């Protein structure tokens, strides 16, 4: 089978990926681009661990084939910031110690990023609703909610 490379823009860099067009984005991000942020959790878009941003919206990369991503702007956890220069949302999650095992953390941070982009100052109820379909098994919900609210208030300060 001949395959035409598919051009993906991930974290601002262009990658030509040779893989079957129906390959879920998640596997290309993890295996071809060696990114650790998005995680395999369910393969059904149910749990949110694989969340990335596509054109600014939260997207469940386990159910989106790379053919649907060509020409789009993809951002992963790595694209937000690094240990030395974390994104304010990443920093808020670190400050609030908002992880136990941390496997769901990628999805929580990326979903928060998407939420704050459209609603910079969510109420607690809005934040809870936005994270409704991101699953956490360790029970870190309290700290995660605090991290969302902290990130929101830091954005407010930064904006003032």
């Amino acid at each position: 089978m001949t395959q035409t490379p598919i051009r993906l823009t991930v974290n601002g860099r262009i990658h030509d990926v040779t893989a079957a067009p129906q390959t879920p984005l998640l596997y290309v991000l993890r295996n071809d681009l060696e990114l650790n942020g998005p995680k395999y959790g369910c393969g059904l878009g149910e749990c949110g661990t694989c969340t990335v941003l596509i054109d600014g919206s939260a997207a469940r990369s386990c159910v989106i084939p790379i053919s649907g991503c060509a020409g789009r702007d993809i951002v992963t956890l790595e694209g937000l910031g690094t240990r030395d220069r974390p994104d304010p949302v990443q920093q808020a999650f670190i400050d609030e110690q908002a992880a136990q095992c941390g496997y769901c953390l990628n999805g929580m941070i990326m979903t928060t990023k998407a939420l704050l982009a459209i609603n910079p100052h969510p109420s607690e109820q809005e934040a809870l609703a936005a994270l409704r379909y991101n699953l956490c098994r360790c029970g870190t919900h309290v700290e995660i909610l605090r991290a969302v609210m902290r990130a929101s208030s830091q954005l407010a300060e930064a904006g003032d």
Partner: protein
Amino acid sequence: MASPLSNESARHSGSLVVARTLDTGASETFVRITADGSVSAYNGHVDLGTGIRTALGQIVAEELDVSFARVVVVLGDTAVAPNQGATIASETIQITAVPLRKAAAQARHFLIARAAERLELPVAELRIEDGLVRGHNRSVSYGELIGDETIRLELADDVVVKPVGDYAIVGQSVPRVDLPAKATGELTFVHDIRVPGMLHGRVVRPPYAGVDAGPFVGTSLIAVDESSVRDIPGLVAVVRIGDFVGVVAEREENAILAATQLKLSWKPTPTLPDLADVEKALRANPSAPRTLIDKGDVNSAIAAAAKPMQRTYVWPYQMHASIGPSCAVADFQHGNIRVWSGTQNPHLLRADLALLIERPESEIEVIRLEAAGCYGRNCADDVTADALLLSRAVGRPVRVQLTREQEHAWEPKGTAQLIDVNGGLNADGGIAGYDLATRYPSNAAPTLALLLTGRISPEPDVLQMGDRTAIPPYDYDHMRVVAHDMAPIVRASWFRGVSALPNTFAHESYIDELATEAGVDPIEYRLRYLKEQRAVDLVNAVAERAGWTPRPVRQDKDGEVVHGRGFAYALYVHSKFPGYGAAWSAWVADVAVNKTTGDVSVTRVVAGQDSGLMINPDGVRHQIHGNVIQSTSRALMEEVSFERGAVGAREWGAYPIIPFPDVPKIDVLMLPRPDQPPLGVGESASVPSAAAIANAIFDATGVRFREPPFTPERILKGLHGEAAVAPQALSAPAATPPSRTRQNSFAKRAGIFATMAALCTAAIGIGAALLPGRAIAPIARPDASVYSTATIARGQQLAALGNCAECHTTIGGTLNAGGRALETPFGVIYSTNITPDVETGIGAWSYPAFERAMRDGLHRDGRQLYPAFPYTHFARTSDADLQALYAYLMAQPSVRATAPANTLAFPFNLRPLLAGWNALFHQTREFKPDPAKSELWNRGAYLVESLGHCSACHSPRNSLGAEQRNAYLAGGFAEGWEAPPLTSLSHAPIAWSEDELYAYLRTGQSRFHGVAAGPMAPIVRDLAALPDQDIRAMAVYLNSFNDTAINTQTQDALAAKLESATQVTIASSTGARLYQGACAVCHEVGGLPLFGSRPSLALNSNLHSKAPDNLVQVILHGIAEPASSDLGYMPAFKDSMSASQVEELVTFLRKQFAPDKPAWTGVTETIARVRSSIH
């Protein structure tokens, strides 16, 4: 934090280790300090997400007097870490940290003594700051004290450790060391390991999902058909050993494909115990009684009770439900075998692996990396063994990732448990006696590969695990506790709280029942029997914090939503009986119960804990939060479902866990006990959970619930009796549309063959009378350059309108080269090559030959074409358009490709018969505009009726398979999908309008109807080639069949009304839970926008249709190729949900989102049909 290293010390190469010599002569290191001043601490336990890496670092830093930042904690790696057994029972801090602490203290004593010598000062005049020993303006660092020496200290038992009063690091909240890496995507998890040359593996598990005992285990696989995966690119191996099956491929997605596609034949699994009634199954499971305590005279005491009380408490099967399915990498090289694993017990796993592959343990290194939180025993060990078998088979490193479905099905479950309590009250309100029997069918869940390959016997071990906290914490005079030890029924092993959580559910529910019967406040009643002062202090502190008001008599509550408050207490006693206690814990839970819906909200929990000395108080607080939330989830909603004795729940819809909005407010009370030894905090706060919640529900409702989870169904049943929870009442059966059965046989696009038999008999006479078509002479391939670019471009649009490429191209094949199999009930037709190849395509076709084919359905050679090719519509195309289409087709690249021969059975293979059909149903006239209609309407009519051929699918067919002219666009079936009515007969709750038709055809989505899926998606994709005004024209024409005029405002208002009326707020059925877990993320109105569309189910035409086919199609097969990627994608659930789950879901969706429509009939059959069809 750490002081800069001096250049001098950095040059030295010495080290100081504190180690223990084992009986075998081997040595285990606990602490290593190198000359550069860095400190490594080794512990055999692993961090399961609880933060012990941080806490252990604090302990070592404290005892060594170095900064926390200087300490690196190494956990679990079998090559360097001591063997301290499995990380279980919350004992890392309480037990396995003890030698580590002593080792650090011992190193400090040694170093300070050496510094005293070096500085010529007494120890008492020295102080240490971050590894720098100072006194009288002189100083020497640990590194300098070590220099180039290699120092080994044998770990001593009698080491003096620091007094608590001197602590500076322990007892302070320290941020977790692992979070920055996790929050920024650095390599952390075993899932992230990439070894050079690594391949990807997947396993295929047997059909006896989640069952690991019985003679069929390891002996059920009959055959593996390797040819079924031969076409998969980069497939390296298919591995089979007994019932173990795995595939290895170069790329992960191809390993996934191979595992899905691999054909296996299995022996039928023998009948397994029915787990629909857990109580019955546990009573029937063979057991051996073991008396844990028999105090006083229980029999006589109970016989003399004024009020005997016999109660039974039932705990359900539950899942660890790790968020990340287990993963491992193995690299099998002779003499050097390495595995990267998320195991909870590296040393035990190494022994299992050695047994599995018959190599000595010394050849195997288990490198432990973090994995998703596990809370007991998940599939981490299983997948490591799987990876090792696959790596051994291919001689290269292999990474194996289990699927969500495999992790759900095969993780050792937290077992169901049955607790009978016999006892009662004396006349004075005191407890007469307490006779408890507990059944806990669980063992250590042997690593699966050992069983599947037949390396170990599938006879289950009977372990003594049901005794944790089986003896109540109360000082009852007459008390007997018996554990009935038994083998597992399904694969089960320890899960947070082990048997202590269910046992405590019984103890704490029962004493609440006693207090109620005695008319005494439940806390006061407990305190009468609670003797330990720390327990009493905790109970009082929690009651005070919660503002507990004594409630000797339950107050009846009014209203639909009733509130209640419950208390429970536990000292989590774990490990081998009699075991020992971890932290003390007590809960006050507040609940709100909706008596109409049965919904229970836990609104607030005050969780108090006495953990002794807290190493990292924030860490303890987080553990309490985690335990409260997870155990609330377990009490309210968690229960594994089974189908024919095998695990049925394979994704999150079938096994929901608590979502953010349902998390209670949590108030944590941590008793300061710095003078007491540190206690395990990983599980204690879970233990009182279910009882506190059940007691609160009793307070709210006056009804005792003795079997979690407290789902709406169970609450309603408790409040109102069986009638309230009969399976969802179904509406009146649907009046089966008269054409349904017949239409169903039109399961394929080529379905007009459904009535070929009738056709044969009816039309053979006419057909036989007609002359067959004559051949039209072949020509040399026309020179496409004679056609203008504009003509060719126009032809391309027309080809798109006609959707030619959809049938004339194989999936992933060359455009228009034919060969696509069109399944019909009577055999397979293969589409032809319509590229201009002279021999195999239409290159030798003159325009007259092409036109005749399009208008009359005749091949150039005179053969009749099957009306799977919709020439009945194409005949209406104008000459100019047909010429443009011809020009376009002739201008394409020529591709040599011969379609396989059709495999139609007699008599359907007789083409001449079709001439008769044509005589009856085919009108070859061109489209004629209707002068009474607008130009736009006529344009639309032309597009729709000619090349667009909409009614080929959207009109019903008559008994001879021809479109019914009197039911134009009234709905039909194609390729197993319903093509819904486009007229006023539409089932959609909001009638179509011109704008919505336009939006749908242009974008593939109408907000009031849904997205294009199935065979409609490629049509919309093709229509993208047409200009907006053509799409508008089609919308105008199609809308003219719609009598209902509706304006935008009315549509919006109706949409909002329907959507708000059908919002899913309570999940009170399996179907509702499946919806919430699997569908709502993308379909619930008002959710966070995700990439793609958010089709509203309340408005979706398919939910309101007379037939469930389209709904079943999208659930099973998803939408992999939408009309546009902007719409997003829908996953297929066919491998994640069982047929009965899909039925529950479909039934729920119909009832919820089309409440005014009758329930569908024949859903079971539709699911079976769609499941078995080739998609």
